[in-house]
């Protein structure tokens, strides 16, 4: 059996997105900046895509700026807000310890430019606390950037409350909604969001397209200079087929959000319930406040890369936050921010589902993961020490009993 359970990394193109893109690649090849008829066709298509994205975000079309990816949108929002703040003598930035590297590494670069960064802690459940944010905001705070939902552990941050607090305190609020878009409701007005980043390929649109929403009234300056595209704020000929496919995929995801969340959430819960039966396993991140599709676990006594490759051999595509899979010496900063020790964080597994996954696939995962975990543990010297303390840990786990 083949199971793709790495939808938080990227998703397959939806039939709707594929059809839209295919047609656009063939027929809408004009440059939206051209005055002739092909240019006008392209320009109209771009306008339509912008209106669609705006509609489902609760924004105005002129507040949408298409980008090359979510990372670009994050870089843009942070660099713009920091530099705009600096002009007013504000050189303090607030974010969280579990942000995506697109945010964290941009913040590190800004730190080198002389900005001061406060990263809010997340505690064991992977969620920031409003009182911490309240205490961290200073008169010289230029920006608060907190992700809507985490990509590794799926935890959902209280963005509406954060937005409200920032608005009251007169601080700009940006949210990296890359993992949330298409899966959780977004209304930039109701949630008091000033800036928001989205990436298409997390909701069945193609790779290489994203957007930045920036509230009207904020005088956004460009990150990329050149032509007059995107109202002079983001130069470069628009990737129209990708933009159109993103709009089509986003509309579809938002229209089906409720039913997808129920369907995927049920599969997620079945997976969590099943994997929790494995001895010395733990769910990472809050159980309730999490994305419908994300299941994240740590299994003691084993290492994540081995787990992933063994699962891959069994036909299951998943991911891990272990050091060996990240190419660095440390396991994922998100797992460490939860307070997990290195030795446990090394044994992490993320299974991320979407509406294309089936119950049969979940059953297959539940059959394979306990076996692979057990095989690797039996190979591990750490497991021997654990067994000395807790003999027969598999007594209550019949699923893992058959080799």
């Amino acid at each position, binding site marked *: 059996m083949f199971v793709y359970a790495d939808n938080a990394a990227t998703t397959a193109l939806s039939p709707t997105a594929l059809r839209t893109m295919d047609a656009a690649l063939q027929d809408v090849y004009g440059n939206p900046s051209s005055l002739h008829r092909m240019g006008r066709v392209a320009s109209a298509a771009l306008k339509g895509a912008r209106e669609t994205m705006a509609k489902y975000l609760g924004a105005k079309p002129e507040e949408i700026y298409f980008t090359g990816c979510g990372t670009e949108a994050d870089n843009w929002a942070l660099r713009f807000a920091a530099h705009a703040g600096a002009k007013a003598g504000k050189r303090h930035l607030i974010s969280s310890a579990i942000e995506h590297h697109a945010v964290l590494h941009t913040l590190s670069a800004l730190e080198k430019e002389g900005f001061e960064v406060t990263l809010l802690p997340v505690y064991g459940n992977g969620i920031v606390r409003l009182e911490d944010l309240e205490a961290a905001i200073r008169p010289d705070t230029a920006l608060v950037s907190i992700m809507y939902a985490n990509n590794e552990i799926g935890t959902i941050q209280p963005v509406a409350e954060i937005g409200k607090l920032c608005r009251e305190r007169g601080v700009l609020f940006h949210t990296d909604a890359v993992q949330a878009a298409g899966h959780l409701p977004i209304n930039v007005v109701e949630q008091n969001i000033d800036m928001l980043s989205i990436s298409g390929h997390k909701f069945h649109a193609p790779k290489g397209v994203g957007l930045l929403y920036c509230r009207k009234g904020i005088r956004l300056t460009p990150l990329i200079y050149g032509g007059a595209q995107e109202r002079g704020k983001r130069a470069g000929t628009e990737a129209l087929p990708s933009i159109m496919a993103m709009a089509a995929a986003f509309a579809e995801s938002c229209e089906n959000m409720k039913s997808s969340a129920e369907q995927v959430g049920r599969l997620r819960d079945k997976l969590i319930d099943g994997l929790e039966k494995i001895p010395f396993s733990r769910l990472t991140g809050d159980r309730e406040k999490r994305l419908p599709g994300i299941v994240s676990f740590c299994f003691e*006594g*084993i*290492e*994540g*890369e*081995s787990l992933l*490759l*063994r699962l891959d*051999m069994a036909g299951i595509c998943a991911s891990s936050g*272990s*050091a*060996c*899979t*990240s*190419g660095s*010496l440390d*396991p994922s900063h998100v797992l460490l921010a939860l307070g997990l*020790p*290195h*030795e446990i964080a*090394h044994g992490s597994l993320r299974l991320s589902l979407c509406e294309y996954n089936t119950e049969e696939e979940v059953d297959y995962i539940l059959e394979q993961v306990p076996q692979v975990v057990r095989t690797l543990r*039996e*190979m*591990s*010297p*750490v*497991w*021997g020490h654990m067994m000395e303390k807790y003999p027969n840990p598999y007594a209550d786990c019949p699923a893992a009993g058959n080799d």
Partner: protein
Amino acid sequence: MAMDYSEKVMEHFAHPHNVGVIEDADGVGEVGNAKCGDIMKMYLKIRDGVIEDVKFQTFGCASAIATSSMATDLIKGKPVEDALKLTNQAVVEALDGLPAVKVHCSVLAEQAIKAALADYYKRQGIENEELNACLACGAEHDHGAEDEA
């Protein structure tokens, strides 16, 4: 990050040789630590100066498991003197190479064997200064494979 493992590495990872414990081992060595994500433990059964049997237990990534498997293969049935000369580079070569960031796994495998041999000598009441010096230099130690991987 996607790893470029050779077929040989994947073969030894999927079906590792010599996994397990030797209860009445003549030498046992353990190197690495869980914090770094790699631990290797080697067990040796030695008779008349020959490594009659060898088993390993490894906590770690695919290359940690594959290098343990290959290193134990390379010394099984060999005289102790040969095992002492095993280098991490020989393990890397036998596996048709390792990604550069994974070469340290082969160093760990070499060290685990040396640690087990040191334990064997200690139990025999023999001081092997060369071996002790080799182990004392820690995880930084390798025999030049890093540059060639």
